[in-house]
């Protein structure tokens, strides 16, 4: 092959590769740039969710109340068992 033709062929190939490479890099940068705002939003939501979950401690009180209510219901059922005749 003539060396001149080989050089011109390389020039053409590089000329084609450059815009493709730029487009790909631009896409990667665009994708990377879109991540930080969403992370900031997630950070705000996570902080709010963590603050909302402070009320989870009240579940322990609810558990205690449920236990007491269950005992009362069972006592009430025992009274009904005595008061009402069987089928």
């Amino acid at each position, binding site marked *: 092959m003539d060396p001149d033709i080989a050089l011109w062929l*390389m*020039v053409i190939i590089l000329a084609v590769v450059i815009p493709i490479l730029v487009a790909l*890099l631009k896409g990667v*940068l665009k994708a990377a740039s879109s991540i930080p705002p969403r992370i900031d939003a997630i950070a705000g939501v*996570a*902080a709010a*969710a963590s603050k909302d979950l*402070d009320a989870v401690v009240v579940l322990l009180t609810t558990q205690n109340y449920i236990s007491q209510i269950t005992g009362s219901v069972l006592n009430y059922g025992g009274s009904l068992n005595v008061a*009402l005749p069987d*089928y």
Partner: protein
Amino acid sequence: MKIQVAIIILEVVLIILALAVYLVATIVQLFKINAGLNVVLPAVGEIVAKTAPVNGVLDAINKNLVTARDALEGLHVKKAGADAAGLVESLFPGEGANFLRRVGRSGKVVNVGTVYTRGVGILASLGRGAPIGAAHTKGPAVRDPKYSTTAASMLYPRPGGARARPKSPVVGRESAHSPYEAALTPGERPRDPTGHPVAPGPTPSTAPHIDVQKQPEPGPPAPAEPPPPAPGRITSAKGTRPWER
């Protein structure tokens, strides 16, 4: 130097520049992402730490509720018997089959509410002879849809017929249960109808005393009363009034 070589060198330089610019920008964005994640991760860790005991607490609550539900359902089965699922179905449509499955029974759920009025079901559950058991569950409805009240009352044996109504209850037959206070001066009126106090007089006798042994003295015969009119005949009162005599 040939022109081709110069162009190639220029293109390579352009490629390196593009790589440098875009990769540096990408690296900057990745650093921002890293910083953002450093902010998010502690908050997520707090969420995980705060929600860690929820499972145990909810399991304990569910366990208590299931215990109470099982006990009440067992009591319901014990008291209502075969109609238990039908009662549940009448109050919560579609729940009768689930109730049967939970209590370990099987069979067709008959909605009691479509067979009996609600009051009849309640009275039956309270022990008035359980008329729900008067008919088979697979048989026709006991309740007459047109005369439902009469049909329901006929389920109970009642002296005097189905239409007989019980007498009103007597309240206060005993003095201890009387709603009125006992009079301090029975038979006496301390005030006249106009509200003025009445002077106390001699105590009247409560009843005329009749001496049985003493015979009345014979006296002149009393004038004979006019004979009563003949029955069935309407007589005029004209001329018999006092102001007409």
